[in-house]
């Protein structure tokens, strides 16, 4: 490794970092976009089965998780405002709240999936196989789409823990907070996807 003659100079390009994050977000939108496309086609071809499948899902737990994600989106955005104002403690508090809400979301998801799996409503499960082709498609999409979404929640939580540590160590602070900003963008993406998943799976009537 070459030693830099000016060790105090650190190269930074916050705008470039953010641009990279946005480009990544667009690839994510297209990834989920194709899943939504699949959903649209299968629902178009199996309207009855999707209607009945939607009835199997708990509107209350879906609404609760929507509220949790919306609040967590607001708290991560507030954490960015706090760091911009140089209020480290508040930024940590907001970020900690976001992390906790993300965990609660996952616990709800675990309980929801757990109950479904117990009844045999999982891909290849006996109760599901007895139902028609359309319902199998509905639950297949439900598990794949909310599963990939849950994976994003877990990645988001890992990012929150990392940024939390960086703020604590003053590595992320009032004049250098692009890590927090990009983590926030990622989290809003997770929220954005859920905004569409919620009505498409839980609110079919």
């Amino acid at each position, binding site marked *: 490794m070459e030693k830099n003659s000016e060790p105090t100079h650190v190269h930074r390009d916050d*705008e470039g970092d*953010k*641009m990279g994050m*946005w*480009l990544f977000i*667009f690839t994510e*939108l*297209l990834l989920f*976009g194709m899943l*939504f*496309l699949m959903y*649209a*086609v299968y629902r*178009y*071809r199996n309207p009855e089965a999707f209607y009945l499948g939607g009835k199997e899902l708990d*509107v209350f737990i879906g*609404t609760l998780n*929507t*509220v949790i994600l*919306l*609040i967590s*989106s*607001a708290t991560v*955005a*507030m954490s960015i*405002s706090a760091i*911009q*104002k140089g209020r480290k403690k508040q930024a940590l508090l907001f970020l900690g709240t976001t992390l906790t809400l993300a965990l609660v979301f996952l616990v709800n998801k675990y309980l929801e999936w757990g109950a479904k799996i117990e009844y045999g409503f999982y891909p290849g499960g006996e109760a599901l196989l007895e139902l028609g082709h359309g319902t199998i498609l509905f639950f297949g999409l439900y598990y794949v789409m909310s599963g990939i979404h849950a994976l994003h929640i877990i990645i988001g939580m890992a990012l929150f823990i990392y940024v939390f540590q960086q703020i604590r160590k003053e590595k992320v602070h009032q004049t250098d907070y692009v890590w927090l900003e990009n983590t*926030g*963008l990622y989290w*809003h993406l997770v*929220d*954005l996807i859920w*905004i*569409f998943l*919620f*009505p*498409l799976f839980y*609110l*079919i*009537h």
Partner: protein
Amino acid sequence: MSQEKHHIMSYTTHLIVLGVLLILTAVSVAVTSLELGALSTLVAMLIAGVKAAIVLVWFMHLKFDNKLYTIFTVFVLVLFLLVLYVTFFDYSYR
């Protein structure tokens, strides 16, 4: 670095945005429970679209950031709608 590019949103603004998002969620749950058939899905999707726009504009700072991000976002959205349109155009004539 230039100072004006960092717009700081107040806590109050964040809470107002959150309030609007929560109200819209309640409206979409209420409307879909009325069992209006196809109309119900349309309304739910419209509300989801408005919520997504609010998240993009305020929480994701599109309102305050470089306009290039807005242009890209609209481009991705149009691309998706185009693919959706072409797919259904295909399915309707099979």
